[in-house]
């Protein structure tokens, strides 16, 4: 695949069709884990892992899978990878696994992954599917890291658990509580959308 094609895929995943602020997908976890950068990073990496591998698997099987049951097949594939991530986290990063709690399991219902499998992987060859999954996952992770950066900074005065703001700074505790998550994400979406014209309006009523 030509380098230009790769670039296009990444621009699509990271900006034009960014799963979070363009397609408004994967919001649940975007709000839940973003009060600490460390947890957000692991969540982002886990999602990239699951999305790219699921895309690859769906793509490999795309010619064999009967169309009627493809949703079930996708769910099975995604769930399996999520379980694997969960096991690996429990084994090698037990503290973070605890901090992420049930939200790792909820990656299964993260609409981004199913969305990419449906929209891309089931009708495209393996390598582009892998890149597409990677790009979407990356787009998701970057938005989450941005939200988390502000939430942790304003709410705890730290970045990746390293205190950054002076001790006199009054923490905006609301930022690390649920309302802060909603506000922050809303503001990020607002900011991004006012930056660029939305390319080819996508229907808002997407699952």
């Amino acid at each position, binding site marked *: 695949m030509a380098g230009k094609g790769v670039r296009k895929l990444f621009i699509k995943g990271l900006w034009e069709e960014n799963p979070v602020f363009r397609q408004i997908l994967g919001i649940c976890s975007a709000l839940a884990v973003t009060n600490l950068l460390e947890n957000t990073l692991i969540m982002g990496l886990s999602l990239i892992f699951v999305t790219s591998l699921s895309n690859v698997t769906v793509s490999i099987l795309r010619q064999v899978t009967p169309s009627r*049951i493809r949703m079930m*097949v996708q769910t099975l594939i995604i769930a399996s990878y999520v379980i694997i991530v969960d096991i690996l986290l429990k084994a090698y990063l037990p503290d973070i696994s605890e901090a992420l709690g049930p939200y790792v399991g909820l990656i299964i219902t993260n609409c981004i992954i199913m969305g990419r499998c449906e929209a891309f992987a089931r009708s495209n060859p393996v390598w582009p599917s892998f890149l597409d999954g990677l790009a979407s996952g990356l787009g998701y992770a970057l938005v989450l890291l941005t939200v988390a950066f502000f939430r942790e900074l304003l709410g705890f005065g730290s970045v990746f658990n390293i205190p950054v703001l002076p001790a006199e700074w009054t923490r905006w505790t609301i930022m690390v*509580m649920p309302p802060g998550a909603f506000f922050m994400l809303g503001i990020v979406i607002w900011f991004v959308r006012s930056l660029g014209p939305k390319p080819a309006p996508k229907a808002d009523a997407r699952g």
Partner: protein
Amino acid sequence: MIGKRAFSVMYMLLLTLGFTSAVTLVYGVNEERIERNSRLKLQKIVLDVLNVPVPFPSQPSNIIEIFEDRVRIYILNGESIYMALSEDRRDIQGYAFRMSGAGVWGPIHGMMGVSHDLDRVLGVAFLDHSETPGLGGRISEEGFRNQFKGQPLPPERIKDTTYFRVQPPQATVRSPNEIDAVTGATGTSNAVERMVNGALNRYLPFLAELRLEQEELTP
């Protein structure tokens, strides 16, 4: 010629078999490690609340070694009481027991250590909880936990004693047995208060008897 339906069913079954096998494999390979992690966590925490010194930074082998060397377990009604031996291994230095309570988001499990004379707290630590990271979750931090270290316990055993009170942090100096709550995490802080008092009320009378028994046995 296999019908479409039949093929779909077989395909699904085959795929399910394949993926569950893969998952089982990954689990099998890591199962021991996961169990070791939780055992190690428990041992680390028991050593911590019993004030048994552990080298820093510590390897898992250190923890296991020290634990087996200095800690003895006494089982009561299916629950474990951990006893720390003193450095010369001749006396008991302290007792540790579980404490649990309902937190804001889910159960909080922890351990508490008290001195052999039952006159002060050696430490508290938390095994797991589902509190908000950075808010209620901060009860796991040393700053919060250290407040309990060395706090006195009264000699009398009265039912439902409030041994500790968790209060919103103040600028003024605190009287003993008053603990600063975690700012912004009232629910979790109150849960810790309940847990700590509940555990002390539960175990102190029993430990007093156990201690008497042990003293009778060793001249």
